[in-house]
Protein backbone atom coordinates (compact mmCIF):
# COMPACT_ATOMS: atom_id res chain seq x y z
CA UNK A 1 0.00 0.00 0.00
CA UNK A 2 1.63 3.27 -0.96
CA UNK A 3 1.25 6.53 0.90
CA UNK A 4 -1.07 8.10 -1.64
CA UNK A 5 -3.63 5.38 -1.02
CA UNK A 6 -6.63 6.28 1.00
CA UNK A 7 -7.10 3.75 3.71
CA UNK A 8 -9.44 3.20 6.56
CA UNK A 9 -10.09 0.62 9.25
CA UNK A 10 -13.56 -0.52 10.02
CA UNK A 11 -15.15 2.62 8.62
CA UNK A 12 -16.00 4.09 5.29
CA UNK A 13 -13.51 6.92 4.80
CA UNK A 14 -13.35 7.85 1.14
CA UNK A 15 -13.18 4.37 -0.29
CA UNK A 16 -16.70 4.26 -1.75
CA UNK A 17 -17.76 1.86 0.99
CA UNK A 18 -20.04 2.17 3.93
CA UNK A 19 -20.76 -0.41 6.56
CA UNK A 20 -23.73 -1.25 8.69
CA UNK A 21 -23.97 -3.46 11.75
CA UNK A 22 -24.54 -7.17 11.32
CA UNK A 23 -28.11 -8.11 10.41
CA UNK A 24 -30.33 -8.06 13.54
CA UNK A 25 -31.74 -11.44 12.51
CA UNK A 26 -28.29 -12.94 12.84
CA UNK A 27 -27.36 -11.32 16.16
CA UNK A 28 -30.56 -12.49 17.86
CA UNK A 29 -29.77 -16.14 17.02
CA UNK A 30 -28.21 -18.26 19.79
CA UNK A 31 -24.84 -18.22 18.03
CA UNK A 32 -22.49 -15.39 18.88
CA UNK A 33 -22.03 -13.38 15.69
CA UNK A 34 -19.48 -10.58 15.56
CA UNK A 35 -18.54 -8.00 13.00
CA UNK A 36 -15.03 -8.87 11.86
CA UNK A 37 -12.17 -6.36 11.80
CA UNK A 38 -11.76 -4.96 8.35
CA UNK A 39 -9.89 -2.24 6.54
CA UNK A 40 -9.98 -0.91 3.03
CA UNK A 41 -7.71 1.03 0.77
CA UNK A 42 -8.28 2.63 -2.59
CA UNK A 43 -5.85 3.07 -5.43
CA UNK A 44 -6.11 3.88 -9.14
CA UNK A 45 -7.46 0.44 -9.98
CA UNK A 46 -10.15 0.06 -7.34
CA UNK A 47 -10.87 -0.73 -3.73
CA UNK A 48 -9.09 -3.46 -1.75
CA UNK A 49 -10.69 -4.77 1.43
CA UNK A 50 -9.02 -7.00 4.02
CA UNK A 51 -11.38 -8.81 6.38
CA UNK A 52 -9.94 -10.65 9.38
CA UNK A 53 -11.59 -14.08 9.66
CA UNK A 54 -9.47 -16.36 11.87
CA UNK A 55 -10.62 -19.97 12.11
CA UNK A 56 -12.77 -19.73 8.97
CA UNK A 57 -12.46 -22.13 6.03
CA UNK A 58 -13.42 -21.31 2.47
CA UNK A 59 -16.37 -23.70 2.72
CA UNK A 60 -17.77 -21.89 5.74
CA UNK A 61 -17.70 -18.51 4.07
CA UNK A 62 -20.49 -16.95 2.04
CA UNK A 63 -19.91 -13.77 0.12
CA UNK A 64 -22.63 -12.25 -2.00
CA UNK A 65 -23.31 -9.06 -3.86
CA UNK A 66 -26.90 -7.95 -4.16
CA UNK A 67 -27.33 -4.68 -5.95
CA UNK A 68 -24.96 -2.29 -4.17
CA UNK A 69 -24.70 -4.42 -1.02
CA UNK A 70 -21.83 -6.76 -0.27
CA UNK A 71 -22.76 -9.33 2.36
CA UNK A 72 -20.41 -11.63 4.17
CA UNK A 73 -21.30 -14.43 6.54
CA UNK A 74 -18.80 -16.90 7.94
CA UNK A 75 -18.93 -19.53 10.63
CA UNK A 76 -15.90 -20.22 12.74
CA UNK A 77 -14.76 -23.67 13.72
CA UNK A 78 -14.15 -24.28 17.40
CA UNK A 79 -11.69 -26.96 18.45
CA UNK A 80 -12.61 -29.17 21.36
CA UNK A 81 -15.76 -29.36 23.47
CA UNK A 82 -14.66 -30.72 26.82
CA UNK A 83 -12.70 -27.70 27.80
CA UNK A 84 -13.20 -24.71 30.06
CA UNK A 85 -12.21 -21.19 29.14
CA UNK A 86 -10.04 -19.88 31.96
CA UNK A 87 -8.66 -16.69 30.41
CA UNK A 88 -9.86 -14.38 27.66
CA UNK A 89 -13.17 -14.20 25.83
CA UNK A 90 -14.73 -16.96 23.79
CA UNK A 91 -14.15 -16.45 20.07
CA UNK A 92 -17.31 -15.66 18.08
CA UNK A 93 -19.17 -18.56 16.43
CA UNK A 94 -19.75 -16.53 13.28
CA UNK A 95 -18.83 -13.30 11.56
CA UNK A 96 -21.17 -11.06 9.58
CA UNK A 97 -20.42 -7.92 7.65
CA UNK A 98 -22.47 -5.80 5.30
CA UNK A 99 -20.87 -3.14 3.16
CA UNK A 100 -22.48 -0.74 0.76
CA UNK A 101 -20.52 -0.33 -2.42
CA UNK A 102 -20.26 3.06 -4.09
CA UNK A 103 -21.54 3.73 -7.60
CA UNK A 104 -17.99 4.00 -8.91
CA UNK A 105 -17.22 0.35 -8.15
CA UNK A 106 -17.75 -2.49 -10.61
CA UNK A 107 -19.23 -4.92 -8.08
CA UNK A 108 -19.77 -7.53 -10.80
CA UNK A 109 -16.01 -7.87 -11.26
CA UNK A 110 -15.26 -8.44 -7.58
CA UNK A 111 -12.55 -10.98 -6.74
CA UNK A 112 -11.80 -12.54 -3.35
CA UNK A 113 -9.21 -14.87 -1.81
CA UNK A 114 -9.00 -16.35 1.69
CA UNK A 115 -5.53 -17.10 3.07
CA UNK A 116 -4.45 -17.76 6.67
CA UNK A 117 -7.57 -16.19 8.14
CA UNK A 118 -7.57 -13.04 6.00
CA UNK A 119 -10.06 -12.48 3.20
CA UNK A 120 -8.80 -10.12 0.53
CA UNK A 121 -11.52 -8.63 -1.65
CA UNK A 122 -10.73 -6.47 -4.67
CA UNK A 123 -13.39 -4.45 -6.45
CA UNK A 124 -12.25 -2.64 -9.58
CA UNK A 125 -13.43 0.85 -10.48
CA UNK A 126 -16.07 1.26 -13.17
CA UNK A 127 -14.39 2.33 -16.40
CA UNK A 128 -16.02 5.76 -16.13
CA UNK A 129 -14.50 6.28 -12.69
CA UNK A 130 -10.95 5.40 -13.73
CA UNK A 131 -8.43 8.16 -14.12
CA UNK A 132 -7.99 8.94 -17.79
CA UNK A 133 -4.94 10.68 -19.07
CA UNK A 134 -5.71 12.89 -22.02
CA UNK A 135 -3.01 13.40 -24.51
CA UNK A 136 -2.49 16.96 -25.61
CA UNK A 137 -1.78 17.24 -29.29
Amino acid at each position, binding site marked *: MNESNQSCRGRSGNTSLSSSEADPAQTSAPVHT*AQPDWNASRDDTGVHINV*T*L*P*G*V*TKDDLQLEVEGRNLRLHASR*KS*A*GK*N*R*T*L*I*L*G*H*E*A*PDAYALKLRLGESLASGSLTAAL*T*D*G*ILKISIPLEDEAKTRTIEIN
Partner: protein
Amino acid sequence: MILPNNLRNTTPWLSEFSRLFEAGLRSPSLAQRKLRIYEEEDSWTLEIDLPGVSKDKLGLKVEDRVLRLDGRREDSQELRYRLPLGEEVDIEAISASLDLGVLRIHLPRKARAHKQIDIL
Protein backbone atom coordinates in the same frame (compact mmCIF):
# COMPACT_ATOMS: atom_id res chain seq x y z
CA MET B 1 -9.85 -10.85 31.88
CA ILE B 2 -8.03 -10.27 35.16
CA LEU B 3 -8.32 -13.34 37.29
CA PRO B 4 -10.34 -13.42 40.48
CA ASN B 5 -8.41 -13.98 43.71
CA ASN B 6 -9.64 -17.50 44.27
CA LEU B 7 -8.14 -18.63 40.99
CA ARG B 8 -4.90 -16.85 41.67
CA ASN B 9 -4.34 -18.59 44.98
CA THR B 10 -5.37 -22.08 44.08
CA THR B 11 -3.73 -22.52 40.68
CA PRO B 12 -0.04 -21.65 40.80
CA TRP B 13 0.43 -22.16 37.10
CA LEU B 14 -2.36 -19.75 36.38
CA SER B 15 -1.26 -17.14 38.88
CA GLU B 16 2.11 -16.98 37.18
CA PHE B 17 0.30 -16.53 33.96
CA SER B 18 -2.06 -13.86 35.18
CA ARG B 19 0.67 -11.74 36.72
CA LEU B 20 2.29 -11.53 33.34
CA PHE B 21 -0.97 -10.76 31.72
CA GLU B 22 -2.19 -8.07 34.05
CA ALA B 23 0.81 -6.06 32.93
CA GLY B 24 0.12 -6.91 29.32
CA LEU B 25 -3.55 -6.04 29.61
CA ARG B 26 -2.83 -2.35 29.82
CA SER B 27 -2.11 -2.52 26.13
CA PRO B 28 -5.44 -2.31 24.30
CA SER B 29 -4.39 -4.78 21.62
CA LEU B 30 -4.26 -7.58 24.17
CA ALA B 31 -7.63 -6.71 25.64
CA GLN B 32 -9.27 -7.68 22.36
CA ARG B 33 -10.73 -11.07 21.74
CA LYS B 34 -7.55 -12.56 20.38
CA LEU B 35 -6.16 -14.74 23.11
CA ARG B 36 -7.82 -17.55 24.99
CA ILE B 37 -6.68 -20.20 27.43
CA TYR B 38 -8.67 -23.38 27.87
CA GLU B 39 -8.25 -25.97 30.55
CA GLU B 40 -8.89 -29.61 29.90
CA GLU B 41 -8.55 -32.53 32.24
CA ASP B 42 -4.96 -33.33 31.27
CA SER B 43 -3.78 -30.17 29.53
CA TRP B 44 -4.15 -26.48 28.78
CA THR B 45 -4.54 -24.98 25.33
CA LEU B 46 -3.43 -21.47 24.51
CA GLU B 47 -5.18 -20.09 21.44
CA ILE B 48 -4.10 -16.89 19.73
CA ASP B 49 -5.71 -15.42 16.62
CA LEU B 50 -2.88 -14.52 14.27
CA PRO B 51 -4.55 -13.94 10.91
CA GLY B 52 -2.17 -13.34 8.02
CA VAL B 53 0.85 -14.63 9.93
CA SER B 54 2.75 -17.45 8.26
CA LYS B 55 4.53 -20.22 10.12
CA ASP B 56 7.96 -19.07 9.03
CA LYS B 57 7.36 -15.64 10.64
CA LEU B 58 6.84 -17.21 14.07
CA GLY B 59 9.37 -18.50 16.57
CA LEU B 60 8.23 -20.53 19.55
CA LYS B 61 10.54 -21.84 22.23
CA VAL B 62 10.79 -22.67 25.90
CA GLU B 63 13.69 -21.18 27.79
CA ASP B 64 14.05 -21.42 31.58
CA ARG B 65 10.44 -22.64 31.80
CA VAL B 66 9.23 -19.56 29.95
CA LEU B 67 7.30 -20.07 26.71
CA ARG B 68 8.43 -17.42 24.24
CA LEU B 69 6.54 -16.55 21.09
CA ASP B 70 8.09 -14.01 18.74
CA GLY B 71 6.97 -13.05 15.30
CA ARG B 72 5.80 -10.45 12.90
CA ARG B 73 2.28 -9.69 11.77
CA GLU B 74 1.35 -9.11 8.18
CA ASP B 75 1.32 -5.36 8.82
CA SER B 76 4.94 -5.68 10.12
CA GLN B 77 3.85 -5.18 13.73
CA GLU B 78 5.94 -7.15 16.16
CA LEU B 79 4.44 -10.00 18.15
CA ARG B 80 5.82 -10.90 21.54
CA TYR B 81 4.30 -13.14 24.15
CA ARG B 82 5.99 -14.46 27.29
CA LEU B 83 4.36 -17.13 29.39
CA PRO B 84 6.08 -18.48 32.52
CA LEU B 85 5.15 -22.13 32.83
CA GLY B 86 4.41 -23.64 36.18
CA GLU B 87 5.78 -26.94 37.43
CA GLU B 88 2.67 -28.76 36.30
CA VAL B 89 3.34 -28.26 32.59
CA ASP B 90 5.17 -31.08 30.85
CA ILE B 91 7.62 -28.99 28.84
CA GLU B 92 8.90 -31.90 26.75
CA ALA B 93 5.40 -32.61 25.44
CA ILE B 94 4.37 -29.10 24.33
CA SER B 95 3.13 -28.99 20.75
CA ALA B 96 1.74 -26.24 18.52
CA SER B 97 -0.16 -25.84 15.27
CA LEU B 98 -1.07 -22.88 13.08
CA ASP B 99 -4.22 -23.30 11.04
CA LEU B 100 -6.54 -20.75 9.38
CA GLY B 101 -4.79 -17.92 11.20
CA VAL B 102 -5.20 -19.48 14.65
CA LEU B 103 -2.18 -20.61 16.68
CA ARG B 104 -2.90 -23.38 19.17
CA ILE B 105 -0.30 -24.30 21.76
CA HIS B 106 -1.01 -27.51 23.59
CA LEU B 107 0.47 -27.61 27.10
CA PRO B 108 0.04 -31.09 28.60
CA ARG B 109 -0.14 -31.51 32.33
CA LYS B 110 2.48 -33.73 33.94
CA ALA B 111 1.09 -37.04 35.10
CA ARG B 112 0.05 -36.41 38.67
CA ALA B 113 2.04 -38.44 41.18
CA HIS B 114 -0.60 -40.16 43.21
CA LYS B 115 -0.71 -43.39 45.09
CA GLN B 116 -3.75 -45.31 46.01
CA ILE B 117 -3.68 -46.25 49.69
CA ASP B 118 -5.60 -49.28 50.66
CA ILE B 119 -7.43 -49.04 53.94
CA LEU B 120 -6.83 -52.13 55.89
